[in-house]
């Protein structure tokens, strides 16, 4: 029984291969393809994060650390030039989101965190037609630990406060 099964399997395998080989020889079209390198400098970028929710911040209780909310976003690039990515607020200055800080990792020291306007990301050229860089993870922090320092008060609860960050990309 097993022997018969083996013979049937071998026969089937032979027929399938014979059929595909025949098909190769009888194909009447030829697919051609090519990659052509750019003659100009170019850059492409992609972000895989569409929104960041920092959750709830309670300013009256908790430690300084509780008033710092950390999140991550990811960027990747390709192209034959190094690029600089500069975040900014779409609508200009904002009393709350002016306290955004940027760094590579949430575990970075306090001095590593930079404010908007002082921060940019440098990304290296991939120098290839279709090769993306690996996703690069970057940290973003809403630091409200000093928000009430200048006598600022928020009399009412602020709910669902939204602003938009724009990333400006230029050649480095």
């Amino acid at each position, binding site marked *: 029984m097993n022997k018969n099964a083996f013979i049937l399997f071998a026969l089937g395998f032979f027929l399938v291969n014979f059929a595909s080989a025949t098909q190769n020889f009888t194909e009447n079209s030829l697919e051609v393809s090519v990659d052509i390198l750019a003659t100009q400098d170019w850059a492409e970028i992609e972000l895989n994060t569409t929104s960041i929710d920092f959750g709830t911040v309670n300013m009256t209780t908790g430690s300084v650390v509780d008033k710092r909310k950390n999140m991550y976003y990811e960027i990747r690039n390709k192209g034959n030039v190094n690029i600089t990515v500069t975040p900014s607020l779409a609508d200009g200055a904002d009393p709350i989101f002016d306290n955004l800080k940027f760094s590579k990792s949430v575990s970075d020291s306090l001095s590593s965190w930079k404010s908007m306007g002082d921060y940019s990301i440098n990304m290296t050229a991939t120098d290839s037609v279709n090769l993306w860089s690996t996703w690069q993870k970057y940290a973003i922090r809403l630091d409200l630990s000093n928000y009430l320092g200048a006598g600022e008060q928020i009399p009412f609860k602020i709910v669902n*406060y939204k602003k938009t960050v724009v990333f400006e990309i230029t050649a480095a």
Partner: protein
Amino acid sequence: MRKIIAYLLISFLFLSLVSSAGIKISPTKTIIEMKTETQNCTIVYFSPDTNTTVESRWSKEKVIGSESYNLSSDKIKIKIDYIRLEYGKYKVCFEPSRAGYFYGVIFFQPVGSLVKMGTWVELNVESLTPRETVSLVTGNVIGKENTTNFGLGLIFFLLLVTFLLIVRRTLGRFNTLKNKHS
């Protein structure tokens, strides 16, 4: 009351980041040498070719970082036209009215996405006025200019000679009077 004012709960601080799928631009830098009151254009390729807004920001100095480019084209007197030629192909034309070096960045931004891809622009603008005046004026005018200079020199020379003669004559009279008294 103070407690109420001090009570602060910021809920759902929500930050929109950019949703983007492969936004690309080429070239990333353009240098143009041109003259004032003339138009010069460059081609920029940008993808995706959805509804796209284009803006330019300028600086009088070449500095690092797009955030330092905060002058409008109106401010530095450069007229800019953006013309979409075909799929993802844009013609950007500059017409400066002042001479000098101008450093700018042209940002392309698909509507709905908030990624701005920028291409650097350097304009080296020469004035039509000084050099072009020389080539436009006739030889007669150039001759006139030289004659004027020569005439001024001659007048100055004659005034100097007259002044020296007056001084010499005055000194002569002074010496004569001095001799009479003595």
